[in-house]
């Protein structure tokens, strides 16, 4: 039975690491956002405010948990559990270095896709059961956004899986030892990053909990520890998407001189900081723009990408052809986007609104 003990100890270690990481990420985000907006960020709790997240966590534990009148009791209480549990369980198979993982599953990537898809159910449960029309609207938007962007995200992962011919994250990292997959398929990387941002509901894709129009989205009626669970899920997912981007496209823990863990954490935190930077910089997309981006651009592009990778592998072409084809497709996809945003869209889309991306009336 020693293997059960081994798995249990590894699981507890990973959960401890995640809780610590979430506290650190919240502090980091507040501090970086503050500096970008020419503020100081947290200052009072310990030097540089490093204990701010601990103080926040304590406050949330000590806060009264309210349940609004007429809310569906069971669904309301289970919502946060269903949202946070998949976020934690995904970390079973995400390695921090070679062998530094609970269990490097053979079905790793497929497991991550399957489990992380469950989170949206928790958020819809929360929004539907709250007996609040803004929460309900937020839940509907959550479902629409999550399922629309899940397709390009999974197809980008599929491209990596086809190249590596394995679903195990350990194998995928080993396959990238001379050249990371970023160089081989830049388009998959771009798709993964855009769809990943949307799955995380970070700017510019944060329409479903847009504070200025539907107050807090599905979580508006939650307080105290239950609200903290949604928050924890959000930051654990942020770290998971960043770690996956580093593992699948940047060669994971491979790198000269420094230890493996340091390389992976460096690459992961580079993505985390990039995502925080985007939050401070970009305005949010309207919901019709959001859906148009997914269905008119990302999904067709992702399918074309899969076909190109399949032909590349089947006819055993040299590596540079795939890089070139990937870049060319990304370039072609940018043309209609540029035309939409610069107001040079073809006449038929300008006169009749076909639900496309925003049209700037520059020549009106």
């Amino acid at each position, binding site marked *: 039975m020693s293997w059960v003990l081994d798995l249990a100890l590894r699981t507890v270690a990973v959960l401890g690491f995640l809780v610590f990481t979430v506290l650190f990420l919240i502090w980091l985000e507040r501090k970086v956002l503050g500096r970008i907006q020419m503020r100081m960020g947290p200052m009072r709790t310990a030097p540089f405010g490093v204990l701010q997240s601990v103080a926040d966590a304590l406050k949330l534990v000590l806060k009264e*948990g309210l349940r609004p*009148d007429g809310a569906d009791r069971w669904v309301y209480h289970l919502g946060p559990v269903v949202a946070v549990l998949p976020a934690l369980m995904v970390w079973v198979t995400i390695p921090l270095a070679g062998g530094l993982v609970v269990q490097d599953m*053979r079905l790793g990537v*497929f497991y991550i896709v399957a489990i992380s898809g469950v989170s949206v159910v928790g958020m819809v449960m929360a929004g539907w059961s709250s007996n609040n*029309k803004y929460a309900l609207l937020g839940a509907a938007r959550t479902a629409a956004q999550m399922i629309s962007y899940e397709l390009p995200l999974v197809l980008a992962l599929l491209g990596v*899986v086809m190249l590596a011919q394995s679903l195990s994250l350990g194998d995928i990292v080993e396959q990238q030892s001379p050249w990371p997959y970023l160089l081989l398929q830049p388009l998959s990387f771009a798709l993964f990053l855009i769809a990943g941002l949307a799955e995380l509901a970070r700017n510019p894709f944060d329409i479903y909990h847009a504070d200025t129009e539907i*107050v807090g989205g599905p979580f508006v009626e939650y307080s105290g*520890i239950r609200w903290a669970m949604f928050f924890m899920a959000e930051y654990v997912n942020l770290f998971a998407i960043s770690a996956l981007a580093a593992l699948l496209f940047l060669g994971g823990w491979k790198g000269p001189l420094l230890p493996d863990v340091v390389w992976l954490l460096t690459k992961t935190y580079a993505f985390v900081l990039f995502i925080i930077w985007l939050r401070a910089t970009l305005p949010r997309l309207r919901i019709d723009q959001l859906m148009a981006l997914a269905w008119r651009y990302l999904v067709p592009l992702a399918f074309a990408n899969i076909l190109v990778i*399949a032909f590349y*592998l089947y006819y055993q072409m040299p590596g540079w052809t795939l890089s070139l084809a990937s870049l060319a497709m990304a370039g072609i996809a940018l043309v209609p986007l540029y035309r939409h945003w610069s107001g040079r869209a073809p006449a038929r889309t300008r006169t009749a609104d076909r639900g496309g991306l925003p049209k700037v009336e520059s020549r009106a």
Partner: protein
Amino acid sequence: MSDYTLDYAAVAIAGVAGLGVVFLSFFLSHILSPRRPSAQKATPYECGMLPQGKFWDQLHLRYYLFAIFFLIFDVELVFLFPWALVFLGAGPAVFFEMVLFIGVLAFALVYGLKKGALKWQ
């Protein structure tokens, strides 16, 4: 001890441990936090105004259209994953059948876009 047993055991243990973390924090909050319910606190939040109208309202049909489209493509993805791992050694028939399959669905997507089924308005 096969690898798959270990894989599933790891998932089960992580599920139990994750639930443990969640319910431990719920329990801590339950014994530490105050409970003083009142009618005002239990009112659904609408930016400080008294709530108006129905809460469980009807949603627009467009949400269901997107859900159906998602279902079509998600089922396709389930077929694509096993194919992606075996198609290199399985001969031309396996390869071109999947190309045809993706082609048919791509046609459906283009048709849907042209018909305006995926238009958000």
